[in-house]
Structure formats: C-alpha cells, structure tokens
C-alpha cells in the first residue's frame, strides 16, 4: 500500500535519536514476566499495526495512543509492521505473552475477506487472540465520473454494456463488494484491479474505468469537489456523512460490507488486564479529540465489546464465504 495518506508525525529525530528510539522500543518488547496483573499497566504498551504508517488503520491506532496516557496512565507506542495485509503483525503479536503490553489493531477484512483468498497456513483466525473492543466502521462507496450517464445501480443494470470497474486490489472488500453487485444485479462487469484507493479514484476521474469502489474517506474530497458522484454505499445502514446516498442493501442486493476495526491482544490474557484496557478504551471513546478524529476521517463508531465483535466478524466471514459460493465468484488466489 504505497498510496497512503499521512497527516501528522511531529517528532523529528536525527541519527542518534533514532538509535535511542530503536533501543528503547526493543527493550519495551521484553517484559520480564513478573509484572503483576494487579498493578497493570505500569510500563509502556506497544500497539502493533499491520499496515504502513499514514494509512487509515495507522491513523486510528495513533489517535488511540494519543489518548492512552490520560486514559490508562501509561504511554502507548504505535509500531508499524506492514506485510501480507496485516497477517505478519497479527501472527507476531499472537505469539507474545498475553500480559497486556502487546496489542494489535485488527482489520476485520483480514479475518472476513482475506481468508477467502489466501492459503490455509496464511490464514489468521480469532482463536489466537482476545478482542478488547471494537472501534469503528469504515465504509465503502461506489463512485462514477461526474460526466458519466450512470447515476444509480439501476442505470448500470439498464446500460446494456460492459461496465468496467476499478477495485483496490485482489482480496479486498472493494473487490468482493463489486463482484457480488455485478453478479447479483446481473450486470456485465469488467474487473480492473488497482493497488489501492487513490489510483482507482484517479482512473475514474480520467475515464479509464466507469466506476470504482473505495473507502468513503478516499472519495469524499472528490465528491465534494464534484469530479465524481456517489452511486451506492455498501454499509448495512445509510451513513451520516452521505445520508442521501442509498445502500446496496436497500436497493435489494444482499451486500453488507464495511471495514471494522478492533483492538486485540494474545489469547489467554487475565480478566483484570482486559477489563483495565476496556475501561481505558471507554475513556478514549468519550474524549472529544477522538470523536472529532472519527468525524474528520468519516469513521462511524462501532464500539462493541469483545464478544460482540467476535460474533459479528464470524458471522460476516460465514456470510461472505456463503455469498461467494452462491454466486460462484472467484476472488483469485490458489485454489
């Protein structure tokens, strides 16, 4: 994911500073095992992100870490370990001690969509993790060029031609949502995968493809500028930020797809630790800065507790697998 947005990273370090920071974070990883769950947390917590710095997952992690000091009474550092859509980072954290000092920010798509594409040994399951709480919901929207004759999904059905559509890559929610829509609505579609949201948007603006589905935050500036127009969102309910745009579900297509995110730690953590983290997160959720962050990034709070998240994600994983089977679509990958 090269095409990521990036806002503030204020620290400026020179070589020696970077060296110190490295040593510090390396030491932070080694907890001595004697830490008592009662006085948790008494040292720095590391929050690992499986995506590159600057992407929306990373920004969410940093927004939480910013509030952690006041909410938990200890500092939280964000560490990016990008690769394999977060599988490397998640597996890495899952293998650590469940002492509460090693957390990971999970993307639901890793569990619900990526598993449809990758080999079994690459698959990440929720069994190795305990989920602290759900965070927010990031939605997908289909857009068309402002000059296009396509205004609605119905227009695409009526168009009586092959509609080329841009996705943000293989095994992404963007691909799944559109494959399902084309299939369910019986539209002749031509899939063109891009590396991420930004180039897919550019392709719509330059008329290289007719429509594309990207995250709302990526499309919003162009929607507001009037260069692209929204067709449909894939969330279960209409989203506040674009309340006049219909959902695929209300248009009659069973495609409820959003990106959910949650905070997790290695399985087997003491209840006190999870409870402390949960209370801390409640405080983060209540803070004004965090709420403002969600609004600025077009995120809808989905602050469920751990069990609910597990249930929800498992349900989605099953639903997507079923839909893929039913519609006989192929996301790619080794079969």
């Amino acid at each position, binding site marked *: 994911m090269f*095409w990521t947005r990036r806002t503030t990273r204020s620290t400026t*370090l020179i070589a020696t500073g970077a060296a110190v920071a490295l040593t510090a974070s390396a030491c932070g990883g080694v907890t001595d095992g004697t830490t008592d769950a009662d006085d948790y947390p008494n040292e720095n917590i590391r929050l690992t992100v499986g995506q590159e710095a600057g992407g929306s997952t990373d920004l969410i992690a940093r927004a939480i870490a910013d509030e952690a000091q006041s909410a938990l009474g200890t500092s939280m550092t964000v560490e990016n*370990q990008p690769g394999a859509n977060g599988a490397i980072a998640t597996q890495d954290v899952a293998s650590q001690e469940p002492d509460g000092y090693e957390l990971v920010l999970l993307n639901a798509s890793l569990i619900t969509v990526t598993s449809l594409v990758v080999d079994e040994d690459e698959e990440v399951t929720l069994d190795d993790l305990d989920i602290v709480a759900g965070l927010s919901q990031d939605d997908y929207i289909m857009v068309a060029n402002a000059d296009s004759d396509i205004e609605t999904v119905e227009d695409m059905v009526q168009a009586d031609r092959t509609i080329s559509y841009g996705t943000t890559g293989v095994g992404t929610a963007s691909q799944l949502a559109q494959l399902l829509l084309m299939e369910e609505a019986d539209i002749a579609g031509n899939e063109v995968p891009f590396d991420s949201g930004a180039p897919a948007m550019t392709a719509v603006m330059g008329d*290289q493809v007719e429509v594309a589905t990207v995250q709302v935050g990526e499309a919003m500036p162009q929607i507001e500028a009037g260069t692209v127009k929204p067709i449909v969102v894939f969330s279960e309910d209409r989203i506040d930020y674009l309340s006049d745009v219909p959902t695929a579900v209300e248009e009659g297509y069973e495609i409820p797809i959003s990106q959910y995110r949650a905070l997790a730690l290695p399985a087997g953590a003491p209840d006190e630790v999870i409870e402390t983290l949960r209370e801390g997160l409640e405080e983060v959720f209540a803070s004004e800065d965090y709420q403002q962050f969600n609004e600025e990034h077009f995120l809808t709070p989905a602050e469920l507790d751990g069990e609910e998240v597990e249930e929800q994600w498992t349900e989605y994983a099953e639903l997507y697998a079923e839909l893929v089977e039913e519609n006989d679509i192929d*996301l790619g990958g*080794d079969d």
Partner: protein
Amino acid sequence: MDFAPVIEGFGVVLQPQNFLFCLLGVIVGMTIGVLPGLGPAATIAILLPLTYTMEPVTAIIMLAGIFYGAIYGGTVTAVLLKLPGETSSAITALDGYPMGQKGQAGKALGIGALGSFLGGTIAIIALTMVAPIIAGWALRFGPPEYAALTLLGILLVATISNGNMLKALVAAAAGLLLAVIGRDGFTGELRYTAGNLELSDGLQFVPIAMGVFGLAEILYNLEKRHLAQPKPIKVDKVLPSGQDLKQSSGPMARGGILGFFLGILPGGGATVSSMVSYGLEKRISKDPKRFGKGAIEGVAGPETANNAAATSSFIPLLTLGIPANATMAVMFGALMIQGIAPGPQLVESNPDLFWGVVNSMYIGNLILLVLAIPMIGLFVRILYVRSTILAPITLLIVCMGAFTISNRFFEVMVVIVFGVLGYLMKKFGFDPAPLVLAFVLGALLEDNFRRALMMFEGDISQVAGRPITLTLLAVFLLVLILPVVLKMITRHKNLNPLSDSSTETEETHVR
C-alpha cells in the same frame, strides 16, 4: 500560469524548521558524498532513515539538500583525488584534477560550486514552467500510457547506462525477475515466495537500494582505500576571479540548457549531459589543446550541465512517478515511505509538497554555494579519516535504517544479501543501477500492462491505439533502432563527433 502556489512553496521552504533541515541535509550530504565512491544514490540510501519520522515536506526538503550536497561531494573528490563520486562527475576529473595538481584546486572547486548553482537554477526555472503542463495531462495518463512509458524507461536505462551494454542488460533482466516475487496483484497467487510469508508482498525497494548502493559501496571502498591512501592536497583561493568568470560564463550557460533537456530523458541524463557539454566546449574552444590539462571551461561546462540534468530528472519523477535514474529511484522509495505517491496528481493534490520540494532545490543550491566555498577545506579533511572508523558507522546507520522500514529483521537480511550482491557486481564490472531501476520499473510495467489489457478485455489494438501510447511506442522503436542506424552511418563515414571525449572518459572511470 498561476504563480501563487510557487510563492507559497517558498514560504514552506523558508519555515525555520524546513530551512534548518535543508541546511543540515546539504552538510550531511556533502560529508558523506565526499567519501570516494559514494555518489548521490548511495548517500541518499544511507541517510534515508534520518527522514522516516519527519513531516513529508521536511523529509523531502532534507533529501533534496542531501542530494545537492552529495553531488558536490563527488566534484570535490574528482578534483582532489581523480575519484569521482559517481560517473556524472567523472568528466570533472578530466580538467579538475590537473588543475588541482597545478595548485588550482580551490579555483576548480569554486567554479564547480558556482556552475552547480547556475545549472540547478536554470533547471529549476524550467521545471517550474514545465511541470504544471505535464501535470495537466495527468488524467489522460491511464494504464496503457504508463505501460508504454515504463517500457521506454526500461529500454533507455538498459541502453544508455554506463559501461558494458550487455552487462547492463543482464543486470536489468535480473531486476525485472526480482520484481516478480510476491503476491500477484491480479490473481492473488504467490510467486517465488518459497512459502515465506515475509516475501508475500514481494521485496521492498528501499532495502535493495540500501544494499546495492550503500552497503556494496562501503565494502568496495574498504578494499579500494586499503590499497591506496590518498595524500592531502592544499585547497585555497576558492573564489573565482573575474578572468575565471569571463572564461566560464559561456560554458555554464550552454551546459545549463543542454543539461536540462538531456536530464529529462530516462537513463543517466547527468552523465551523458556532462559528456556532451565537455565535447561541445572542447569543439568550440579556440585552443582545444588546453583541455585535459586543466582548462577551467572543462570544469565549468560539465559541472553546470550535470547539475541541471540532475535537477531536471526530478521532472519525470514528480510529474509521472517514473524515476529516470538510480538517484531518482532512491528518491521514489523515499517518497513512498512518506506515503506520497509521485505522479500526475501530486501537483494538484499536494501543491505544498510539490512546490516545497521544487523550491527547496533552489534554496538547497544557494546554501550549497554559500557553504561550499568557505567550508571546502573542512570537507576535504573527511577524506583522511580512516575507513576503519567510517565504514562501521555507515554500516550501522544502514542496518538500523533497514530495520525501521517495517520493524522486521527480514529487511536487514535483504540489505546484507543485496550488499554482497552489489559488491560482487561492481567487482565484476556490472553497474548495479540498471538492476535497481528495472526492479522499480518492472513492477510498474507488469501491473499497468496487465491492467491495460483488462480495461479493454484483452484487445491489444485498443491498448496500443490510444494517441499518447502510440506516440510513446513510436519513440520506443526509434530509440531501439536509432543507435543501429547511427552506427551504420558512422561506420560508413568513419566519423564520430564524440569520439575524442568518450575515449578520455574511459580512462577516468574508476569503476
């Protein structure tokens, strides 16, 4: 055109923090760049980690500073030791080194600094005017156009490279193959990962560049410097006299314009332009015999040309996202680490950054001029620090930087493997630049070509039939055929306009 963003860009650069890092970049760049063999690409690759945690604009501004500092560092070693930092300053050694031997090292370095400044200035002014025009076509550049453009880029890189063309092609082919590793972005299938999850996203560009340019150069230099410890040369009277300026103004003006146009072309524009400038000056000189024996024009022209070319090579990078040479490839990596996608959208979506970078080059050049003249003596001393002290420090910075890319030890291993590979390549006369460039361009070519085919449901005539694509493919054919045709003509007439300068160049190539 609208000048407001340009002016705002200056505002960005002149913010105290950005200005400071530009200054710091020039100093650090010159410090590392002055080490023989470490050219701009290596210097930027080594120092890249310093910028990870900065704001994007600040980071790129500092890198631009490092870039200029490193280029000038190469001039210093070319004049004093006849060891150019990279091939583009090899020409400078032709007359710069004899000047040093005659006790005019200061004069050569002074005129070199002035020439670099003027060359950079000419190119920046032109860049300011050209970039928005190219960016205006941005949306018309779809996958087919990119595929054609990268194809042209790979051809130019492999053929206009320095030295043996067959070896360059071999290196480029290896780079193309390396680009294949990882998950296929269209089918999701894994390619050549040997079941290793670390490889599922393919190899990262930055550790490869750090290995092949940074680590390999350190290893190579250790060996070289062990063999020959340089003896100090006195550097004084850096400020050029009125007479010097009068002699140099013509070569500088011609070199600057020449460099700008040749620099836009992918594939070592800086080297070619300094060679062409040298050839031109020698040809039109009233007394060509002075060349090679310390003629100031032989330093002024090429130095101006290579700096103008170095600056204009930012045009394809910033406006199209296509790196034209090894240094730009490293810059490309640096931008990606910052989460910035260089390409047609950059000017519009991120005017602050675009004009900040462009104008920082201007300021960087100015700082270089102001700093270089009084401080040359100081930088020269770095040459005499023992490599047993320098090499481990540089190595540590490289490994640390590689680790911090994604906090994985895996990347450090990649650096080491490619460091050894790069060292062996250099030892056996392979230029590592085509490998790195083909690696970057190969991925772009494959993705865009396949994407273009998908857009038109496999109809290749529609892919190739778009006007810009067709033009680019025509240029591709021209570049492919032209050298063969030219060779036939020259063989026929037995006349080669560049033969004089090119043979002399061979001698000074340290690689």
